[in-house]
């Protein structure tokens, strides 16, 4: 779907009978989190129509890196469902053991202008294992739709 030419960084959607999955690669853990967010945003919204005129600072906690990844992606989902904020890009500002902070850029949802590609119910833990691959990381994430 979208792969960085310089190395193993990017994401691609994979098929699942009832749901939708993303296979994500990152050069670093931060990169993995950002690529996962980019893939998730791409699944949910037609981002061409979203202007990055507002930002939303978010933070999430979790014991293990997998917990943290799920919590991080949930921030994007929650921003949309509760605050009607459409995210076009997400940047990790700090990632430490147990906590991630970041900034979502986008704007308030406008049904006339924005297109929702896929309504996602939740980020699942199904088969979720972040693995070290070469110099980087890899993970597969299944979303409940």
């Amino acid at each position: 779907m979208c792969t960085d030419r310089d190395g193993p960084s990017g994401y691609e959607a994979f098929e699942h009978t009832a749901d939708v999955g993303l296979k994500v690669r990152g050069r670093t853990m931060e990169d993995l989190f950002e690529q996962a967010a980019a893939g998730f945003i791409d699944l949910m919204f037609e981002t061409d129509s979203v202007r990055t005129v507002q930002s939303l600072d978010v933070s999430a906690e979790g014991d293990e890196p997998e917990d943290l990844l799920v919590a991080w992606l949930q921030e994007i989902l929650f921003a949309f469902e509760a605050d009607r904020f459409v995210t076009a890009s997400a940047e990790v500002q700090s990632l430490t053991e147990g906590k991630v902070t970041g900034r979502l850029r986008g704007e308030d949802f406008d049904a006339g202008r924005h297109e929702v590609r896929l309504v996602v119910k939740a980020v699942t833990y199904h088969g979720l294992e972040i693995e070290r691959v070469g110099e980087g990381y890899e993970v597969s994430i299944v979303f409940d739709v």
Partner: protein
Amino acid sequence: MAEKGYELKQAGPYVWEVPPYGRMSVPARVYADAELIQAIERDNALEQAINVAVMPGIVRASLAMPDAHWGYGFPIGGVAAFDPQQGGVISPGGIGFDINCGVRLVRTDLTEEEVKPRLTELVNELFSQVPCGVGSSKAIPKLSESELRRVCVEGARWAVEQGFGRDDDLERTEARGALAGADPDMVSRRAMDRGRPQMGTLGSGNHFIEIDVVEQVFDREVAEAFGVAEGQIALQIHCGSRGFGHQVCTDYLQTMQKATRKYGIDVPDRQLACAPLDSSEGKRYFAAMACAANYAWANRQTILALATKALERVLGKDRNALGMRQVYDVCHNIAKFEEHDVNGEKRVLCVHRKGATRAFPPGHPECPAPYRDVGQPVLIPGDMGTASYLLVGTEGAMRETWGSTCHGAGRVMSRKAAIRKATGRSIKKELGEKGIFVRCEGRTTLAEEMPEAYKSVDAVVSVMHEAGITRKVARLRPMGVVKG
């Protein structure tokens, strides 16, 4: 766990079994015919049923219904009972994100001939009365927090008290539309925030409102007790607890990741994270899950009232004159404490049904009074182009499946594959040629939900009929469909 190498044996004409191996403490048992078992095996659903057989305190077997397909954690179409006395657990992944996703069926006195000329108008009016898409909620103003707390405890009764529907709807709803043990203090702020604007909304994906015609009655006596006869028009609603339930599940999956480590439980998949039923985490999740279940019942009750308004407006008659009466409302994603017979002994077990429907027999105290002599109605929504079924619960279900049966056709094709298959076709037109008029919010929903993406609902319900778990009462054919 669940590497290839399991042994799958036929254990009866419609039952297949994987005997325990590795860490399984009970067998995995699947209800299917020779064709459906292949789809289930191809799809990882069997491996998922095997994984469930590893969980602490599981009783007798990890069950999969014929509509089982690859879910996350538990298979969709999975049933498992856990014994609190034997270290049994509760697992949010065994219920699903859409807590109390379920179906409501309403019969009418209308005939196909009366509705046909007004069908387009009727579907358009349903589409405008019931918000479906992206969290929108024109119909019901955003709930205050105190109101949402009432919804959590009172369920469908809250909606009836707001003027949405009638008391007799409650009598014909599983658990009378309110699961006991709900505690709104166990629900996060986030779930509250997601739930407040979404009351009275349908959601997207496979959720729908349908106008159906009762095409065939298989069991006249039971159909009569349910108020259903051939040629009648019925209204069907399929939806759940919306963002409220999704967030409750999300929150507690995180709690359960910790709990699984804390109690030293080793599960083969993080989505199977769980806690002992008697632990504080287990009790808190149950209390929050009950709130979400009650939200879903209030939601379907509210949607019924909005849909009734649409019918009244288009047909110019009120609910009584239309002969609208609820047949039943059942959930197919839930965990409940129920009394069951285990080796001749009455035990209270926590029965998880994920994509499975309760199917209690005649005489069961939880079977509503008007149906006590015939058994509990079971509603099986099919795909939008084929059919849905009305079934009835039996003693066989109590003996074999903890009073449970299938929940639908079950997907067989991924959403992407369905979109690919629909390329260059108009699903709306194809359905139109079969006399089915569809209105849909999402751009790709029709392709994703195309009939070929599902197994044959006829085959699925026939397996449960032949296996003596649920009996066929009536087949309903869709005429008008509103999709999210």
